[in-house]
Structure formats: C-alpha cells, structure tokens
C-alpha cells in the first residue's frame, strides 16, 4: 500500500457550480430541511408542550393569579398580551438551540456536511421551520388572550404589525439560540444555559410589570434592553401610542443582534464536528 512506486496522480480539475444553480439547489435543500424540522415538531409531544401549552399556561397564570396585584393603567390583560407574546417568542428559541445541539451530538450535522448540500441550508431550514412554529404559537396565544378579554385597541394594521414584530423578534432570538446550541453542543447544558440568559432578559423587562415599579438601578437596564424596547413598540401597536421612537430602536436592536449572531452561528456550524 505504499505509493512511492506509482506515478504521481493529478487530481481532476472540477469546475465550480454556477451560482444560479447553487442558489436553486440551496433553496431546495432549505425547503427539504424545513419540512423535516416541521414534521419532527409535529411528532414530538414535548416540543408541542413547550411551544404551545407552556405559553398558554403563562397567559392564564398572569391573567388570573399575578395580574390582579400588578397596577397598570388600563386592564392588565391588555398590558400583558404584547409582553407575553414577545416572551413566548423568545422562549420558543429554546427549541432551536436544543434541536441543533442534539443533531450535532448525534452526528446528524456531520452527515449533512458530508452531503452535497448548501452549507447554509441546515441553519436556514431551521429558521424557516422555527418561524412557522412561531407563527402558530403566537396565534394560539393570541386566541387564548382574546378568550380571556384581550382586545386590540388601535385597528387591524397595527395589530398585524404587532404580530409581525413579535415573530421578527422571535426569529432574531432564534439566531442567538442557534449560535448557543452549536457552540455549547450539549443538549442539557444548552437547556440550562437558555434559562440563564432568557429568564432575566424577558422578566427584567416591561413584559409583565411596568418598568417604573422596579428599583432605580434595575430600571436603567430594564428600560434600555432590547426586550423592553420591542415590547413597548408592540404594546403601542396593540393599544395605541407613540410608535416612532421604539420603532427605530427595535429595528436597530433586531438588525444588530442578527448581524452579530448569524455570522457567529454560521461559523459555529462550519467548525462543528
């Protein structure tokens, strides 16, 4: 099996695939993986629990248990719903991190990487499937919200925009989770780590209580962090209020987060093995 005696072999010169076809195949790959991820979601009772039942539980808990004790202007349920929609959107990203870490652990991602598949397809397919999942989850929560008394006060277009912003926020957080999942690589650690960063971020915000009720030092953080900015904008869209300031702040935050974490996630995917 020594090769010294054989003549030197010259590798075949393989021309690169035209960009147009690469894009077309990449879209097909993404679609196939989206389909796969959604099928898995439908088959997995635990995922359905965490993405639908848990947020519904939160709505009911805050509406009937904590809500009465939290003073806000107007009905608490109106205050609550934009917050809980954003919080659920953020928590839904757990699924992204855990699923990616698990696939990495089992070697699924290795196998995908040894296939003639677009490099971005695994992450993109995941994000598209997560977006679909998010839309379903948020619609369910909204339905429950309506059943317990929530109403949009500012018309249909702002209402729609609020949901769109909620989904955009969730997808942005998914890019962070994708990076976390691929970087930590261990399903259980990813789960615990998710709690560590998502709980403070969503609870120390204007999601459930007015920020002004927090101690001063905490307010500084709570007022300026992205979750509050996004929730305030969603709330103003739902209930009526000034939109401009929070709108551009939200846009800057979401675009900024995505701009940092998408490349990080892609890099982690390339290196993961």
């Amino acid at each position, binding site marked *: *099996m*020594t*090769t010294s005696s*054989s003549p030197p*072999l010259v*590798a*075949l010169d*393989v*021309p*690169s*695939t035209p960009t147009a*076809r690469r894009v077309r*195949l990449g879209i*097909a*790959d993404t*679609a*196939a*993986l989206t*389909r*796969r991820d959604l*099928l*898995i979601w439908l*088959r*997995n009772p635990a995922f359905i629990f965490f993405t639908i039942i848990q947020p519904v539980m939160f709505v009911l808990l805050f509406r009937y248990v904590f809500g009465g004790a939290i003073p806000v202007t107007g009905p608490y349920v109106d205050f609550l719903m934009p917050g809980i929609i954003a919080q659920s959107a953020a928590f839904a990203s757990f699924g992204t991190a855990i699923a990616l870490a698990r696939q990495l652990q*089992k*070697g*699924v991602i*290795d*196998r*995908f*990487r*040894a*296939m*003639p*598949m677009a490099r971005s397809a695994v992450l993109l397919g995941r994000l598209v499937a997560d977006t679909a999942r998010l839309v379903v989850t948020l619609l369910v929560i909204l339905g429950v919200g309506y059943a317990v008394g929530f109403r949009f006060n500012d018309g249909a277009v702002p209402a729609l925009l609020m949901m769109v912003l909620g989904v955009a926020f969730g997808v942005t957080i998914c890019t962070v989770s994708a990076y976390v999942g691929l970087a930590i690589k261990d399903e259980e650690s990813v789960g615990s780590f998710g709690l560590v960063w998502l709980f403070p971020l969503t609870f120390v915000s204007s999601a459930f209580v007015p920020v002004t009720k927090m101690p001063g030092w905490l307010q500084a953080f709570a007022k300026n962090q992205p979750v509050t900015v996004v929730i305030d904008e969603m709330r103003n869209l739902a209930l009526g209020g000034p939109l401009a300031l929070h709108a551009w702040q939200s846009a800057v935050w979401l675009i900024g987060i995505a701009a940092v974490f998408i490349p990080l996630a892609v890099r982690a995917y390339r290196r993961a*093995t």
Partner: protein
Amino acid sequence: MPSRGSRVQRWRKAAFTSSRRDDCVARAVTPLEIGASTVDDGRNTSGVDTASRSGAHPGNGRRAAAIGAQRRQGEWDGPAIYVEDVHKSFGEVRALRGVDLVVERGNVLGMLGPNGAGKTTAVKILTTLLRPDRGRALIEGRDVARSPAAVREIIGLAGQSTAIQEELTGRENLEIMGRLYHLDSETRHRRTGELLERFDLVEAADRATKGYSGGMQRRLDLALSLVAWPQVVFLDEPTSGLDPRSRLAMWDVIREMVASGTTLLLTTQYLEEADALADEIVVIDRGTVIAAGTSQELKSRIGGDVLEFDVVDRGRRDEAVAAMRGLSEADPLVDGETSRISLRVGADGSRALVETVRRLDALDIHTEGLGIRRPSLDDVFLALTGHGAEDEVTNGAKGRRRRRGAGRARARREEQGSRP
C-alpha cells in the same frame, strides 16, 4: 429471509433497472461520455458484471449535479481512494502522522485499529468533514480539500454518527434524504421502496424509528447513506455496539452492497469483521499505517500456529508467562482484556504443547482451554501494535521510530523478542 443468492440477484437487478437505464434516457449523452463509458467497461476487470457495477454510479439523470461528476469520472482511471502522506493534528495531539492508502475501484478496505488510532479522523478527512494539515486525498480523482463539493456528490457515509431522525418513520427518513440529494419524486419513491426492501425494513417502514432495534437503526442508517448511489462508501465502525446476531445481519447487507460494485472503506475494532468483509486490511496505530495487505498476507506474516490457554488462578498468570519463555523463538503475549496467554510456536506445535503441559504441571499451574490453533487476525494485531490495550502506551513510545509499515512492525516484534 430469502437465501443469500436470490437477495444478491435482486440487488443487482434493482441497481440495473433503477439507475443505469434512467441514466441513459434522461441524460444528454456527449461524445466524451461515450468514450468514457467504453473506458469504464474496458477497465472492468474486478469480476463484477457491468450492470451491477453501474449500481455504484450516481444514478439519477435528473440530479443535475451528478451529470458533470459522471462525465468527468471517465477521465479518472486512478484508484477510487488515493491518500498520500496525510497529516492531521488537533493542537498538541497528532491524530494522523502521514497516512498513505490506495483502494482500487470496487474493493473493500478494512481499516483496523484500537480506539484513538486515528481511524475516525481519517474517515472525516476523506469525507470532507476535516481538512488535512498536509498531504492530499483523492476520491475518484477529486481532491477532498480543493473540491469538497465534488467529493460529496459521490460518497456515502454511515457508522458512528447517525442521520436518522428518530421521531420520523423509516420511510420518511429515506424520503427526506432523497429530497436532500435532489432526486425527483418518482425516483425518490422508487429508491425508498428498493432500499426498504433490500435492508429488510419493509414491515417497519411506517413506524417511528425510535422504536427500531439497534440493528434496524444501523441498517436504516446505511440505507440513508446509499440513497444517491454513491460510488465510494465510508462506514465508520458500522457494527460497534451491536449484538452478535445483528452484527452478522449487518455484515450480510454490507456484503450485498459490495457485490454491486461499490468501493468501500470500513473502519473497525473488530478483527473478525475486517477479516469477514475486507479485500485488503490496513492496520492503523497512533496515526500511521503499520501494516497493510490481505487478511491472508497479514496472517502469514505471523507464521505458524498459536498455542494459547487461560490460567485458572489469575494470580499465577505471570508465573505461567515466565515459565513459557524460551519455549519458542517468540515471547508469550498476554491479552489485556481476557488475560489469555498466547505464544507463536511456528511449525512445531505438538512439541510446544507437550512442553507447555510439562512446565506448567511442574509448577502446579492449572490451565483452561489449552490448545493450538491457526493464527487469527488478533494475533497479527497483537504482534503489530505490541500487546493488548494495557501495554499500549509504553509500547507505543518504544515503537516510535522512523520506520514505516512492515519495517516498523518487524522492529517492534524484534524488540519484543529480545526483551529479557
């Protein structure tokens, strides 16, 4: 289960009808291709008929990416796998220190070595998951570092990792794989059906795979890697963790796959597995190939019979080893795992047997399973890598000299032989 013969025939037939035909119909045939296929057929000297060989080609004409790959294949008349002086380090750890391999088209190479020898690293480099630090590797002429996309078109990978999604059924797993290889829906359905049948998964096809047995999961996983008719398949420890019966079943499907002309590289820690499946074996240890050849060649390298036994009272094992010294030219070896003592005794087996009984009896050491047998790959492995696992580290350090292959192995054996 139908007889092996009929299953193989079914395989070949399926490979013929499902891939070669479609190819010819669906593809625009260029003059270059015609020439290429003539060369291909003319080169077919491996004893496998042309129809079955074509089963190894990426079969679907609609799979646009494969068309280019196949046309270029005709230009390549070198070996299916060619590896030259490949090095790979992870920080301080030198996983591969200059590996050379050649596997001819349609052959099966068994890569044999203990845990941490570098087998998985080698497979990862050949399947484009890792880039070599130095050296080069060609799969059907495509450089794994420079044209990884072209390599991925023609390879299949299965083994330690799994591509199975356990929430989905076997059929769904295969269908999704077909989508990812861009097969059109008709081809996808047909291929899924074929593979389910061939891997004995028809009955379980529509059950969630999390309920599959270990053996079924491995078979499905192998099927997943074959969806797009890969020309070269890599199996990284395909039967590790399987019970003996599932392992034999797995061997059967691997043999069938090989019968259709696929080039296969298989890594294993099981010596009998390499013996059973591989045309050629390379023994890899500490990141280098320390021996290569057919199973027969490796066995003959050891020469002669092997005498072996267990000591009933393990505490007296060392005494027994000491008593055996000088009985033949070789030194007695102890298997680290089983404590079984073995000694290469050359042609004069019976004299050695009598002498062993005499010596041990004099010391009142009781034995179990004392006998003489033909050398197995285990013996080859022990002789090449030193001892069993327990001595591996010290022995490896000693063996680290600037010799390669047989030379280095011989050096090691001499070292052992001359030890006091």
